[in-house]
């Protein structure tokens, strides 16, 4: 069916039996789900059932690249992973950049499924078609940086290595998988990896990826690169941090655990301040002309020497949400999150929640091991991340994630900024009503990406008012479906428009690559992926009652800024949710109807 873009096979490794198999991929699945996030979800549907516990040996890590991963196009860097999340206890999809996916593809495989559990620590080494399970006891206990540096000697670059850190070894439910400076951050895939006694996967691929019409493909790629360079100049200059001050001005920058949308310490966490005082150089993922990652270093003070590349979301979570205006503390916190292998968003929002409990007197210095865990205390925030990683003091409870904390402290749920167990990103829905649906209906729990990043459309489109509920169901569905196919292609979303990948897909890049005319089908594929994910989470017990936003957004008016006075009442939210279900073809409880499944050729899954 395809004459390029795909290798047509994947590796299945069972760590219990130490078996390594090469298996073919049904091309019909690739036609229907593209690759990466979509294809990984399709395998998840078949292989990870309801009874599988996230940290049991029955859980699997399902990695897939997309058709564009590893090709010469701009930012063809992404790989998707699907697994059952220890943090949300349901389906998780996460995508990561760096050079890991491109090398997996060049080694001759579209994906990698890991199952079972090794009897002692191991790592996987893939060098083209030579795949080995190697002894990894000497790597256990090491930070991701140490592991990736060590395995770099075998494969060439640190970002060809995906590893989990000490937090994952301690089964911290917020632990990610680190790929050099990038990560599969959200949902706790790192803890799943460590529960299998798997410390790392190192990949080196030297093979080719077939292209159906190479000359035409290269012409499109050239145009895409030049468009992206120009249109994403601010991403190169400032990274995603460029939005920090802007979101604050718009009154939706979550501050002190979302108690307000305006941060008074904004000047020292904004992009310009970061550039002037901490920036060293840009870092780039595979074939990326944008290089949005801004490597920063602390030059003086107690965090002197700390180095990391804080993104908008990280600055939000470890900055304003914790009330921290000391950018050096944010760099340090980001560095230790990367090294210990913890998701910066989840940990920041959970510490922000703990800070609010501390200030309200529900927890004290006895619980925090002596830390004065007040908003704005950057040093305490950094120390608390270490306590979470080591499961010390209240860090042991916080390491359980929002769902685990809610079980122990049910009366504190009103302060928890999460949906389906996943902490929110750095946008306050009271400043953009559609963003409430983004969080509420995102298939992996509160996520600004999977759930559909609505900020631009809500702000700029003449069609929508950011403070109105009308039309938001239709808008969020369209953004989610767009993201559904983009995450399945193997590219970074930042460069998508360079290829013509919008909500009205155009161009011929996929035809030139694969020989199959995917473009007219892309939005349907995106909807199919999203609906498949919904079938999965329905199966896992998630319905309308789980598509709910935090109590704070529903009951507390925004106290200041551009969104002052705004609140999203239950009635307003339910009206948006009803509209969303209707345009999605889901019933009132949030289940896809038979008719919609038939329309999307998913009726074989009924």
């Amino acid at each position, binding site marked *: 069916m395809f004459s390029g873009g795909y290798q047509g096979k994947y590796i299945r490794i069972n760590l219990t039996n130490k078996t390594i198999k090469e298996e073919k991929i049904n091309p019909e699945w690739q036609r229907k789900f593209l690759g990466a996030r979509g294809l990984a979800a399709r395998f998840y549907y078949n292989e990870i059932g309801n009874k599988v516990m996230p940290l049991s040996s029955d859980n699997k890590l399902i990695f897939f690249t997309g058709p564009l991963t590893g090709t010469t196009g701009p930012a063809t860097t992404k790989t998707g992973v699907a697994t059952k999340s220890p943090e949300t206890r349901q389906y998780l999809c996460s995508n990561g950049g760096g050079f890991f996916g491109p090398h997996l593809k060049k080694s001759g495989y579209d994906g990698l499924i890991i199952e079972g559990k090794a009897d002692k620590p191991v790592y996987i080494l893939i060098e083209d078609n030579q795949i080995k399970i190697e002894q990894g006891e000497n790597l256990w206990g090491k930070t991701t940086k140490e592991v990736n540096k060590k395995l770099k000697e075998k494969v060439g670059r640190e970002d060809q290595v995906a590893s989990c850190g000490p937090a994952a070894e301690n089964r911290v439910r917020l632990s990610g998988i680190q790929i050099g400076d990038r990560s599969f951050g959200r949902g706790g895939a790192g803890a799943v990896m460590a529960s299998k006694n798997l410390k790392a996967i190192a990949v080196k691929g030297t093979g080719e990826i077939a292209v159906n019409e190479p000359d035409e493909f290269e012409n499109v790629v050239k145009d895409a690169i030049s468009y992206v360079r120009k249109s994403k100049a601010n991403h190169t200059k400032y990274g995603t941090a460029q939005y920090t001050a802007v979101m604050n*001005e718009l009154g939706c920058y979550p501050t002190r655990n979302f108690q307000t949308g305006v941060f008074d310490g904004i000047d020292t966490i904004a992009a310009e301040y970061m550039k002037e005082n901490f920036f060293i150089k840009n870092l780039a993922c595979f074939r990326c002309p944008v290089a949005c990652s801004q490597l920063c270093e602390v030059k003086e003070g107690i965090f002197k020497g700390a180095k990391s590349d804080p993104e908008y979301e990280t600055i939000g979570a470890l900055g304003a949400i914790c009330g921290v205006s000391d950018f050096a503390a944010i760099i340090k916190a980001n560095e230790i999150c990367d090294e210990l292998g913890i998701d910066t968003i989840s940990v920041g929002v959970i510490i922000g929640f703990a800070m609010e409990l501390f200030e309200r007197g529900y927890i004290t210095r006895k619980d925090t091991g002596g830390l004065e865990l007040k908003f704005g205390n950057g040093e305490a925030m950094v120390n608390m991340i270490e306590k979470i990683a080591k499961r010390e003091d209240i860090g042991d409870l916080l390491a359980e994630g929002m769902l685990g904390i809610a079980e122990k402290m049910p009366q504190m749920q009103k302060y928890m900024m999460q949906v389906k167990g996943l902490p929110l990103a750095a946008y306050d829905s009271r400043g953009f009503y559609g963003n409430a649906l983004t969080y509420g209906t995102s298939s992996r729990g509160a996520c600004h990406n999977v759930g559909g990043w609505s900020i631009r459309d809500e702000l700029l489109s003449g069609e929508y008012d950011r403070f109105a509920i009308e039309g938001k169901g239709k808008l969020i569905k369209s953004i989610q479906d767009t993201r559904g196919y983009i995450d399945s292609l193997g590219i970074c979303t930042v460069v998508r428009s360079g290829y013509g990948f919008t909500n009205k897909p155009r161009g011929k890049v996929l035809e030139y690559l694969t020989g199959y005319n995917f473009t007219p089908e892309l939005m349907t594929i995106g909807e199919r992926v999203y609906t498949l994910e919904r079938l999965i989470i329905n199966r896992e017990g998630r319905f309308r009652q789980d598509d709910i936003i935090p109590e704070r957004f529903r009951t507390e008016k925004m106290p200041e800024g551009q969104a002052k006075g705004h609140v999203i009442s239950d009635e307003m939210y339910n009206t948006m949710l009803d509209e969303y279900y209707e345009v999605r073809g889901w019933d009132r409880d949030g289940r896809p109807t038979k008719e919609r499944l038939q329309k999307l050729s998913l009726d074989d899954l009924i």
Partner: protein
Amino acid sequence: MKITIKYFLDFRKITGHSKEELFLKNCKVNVKDVFKVLSNKYQIEFEKVVSNGIVIVNNRSINQLEKENTILKDGDELIIMPMISGG
């Protein structure tokens, strides 16, 4: 009438300010008129530069109002920032 303008990122570099106040004699002024004043002040075609950015009057984008014909009143706040896109 007095209009407050806040600039972000590139627009701070162009103007050298993060915030400024414009005092306009005419009482019926729209966004386009403000751009003309800024073009003269900074010797740059402001309307053209802003076409790649976002302009907000009080808390709404001019795209949701009357675009550049949006009428301003005394005390209004204008925000001028670069285009945003997801990441």
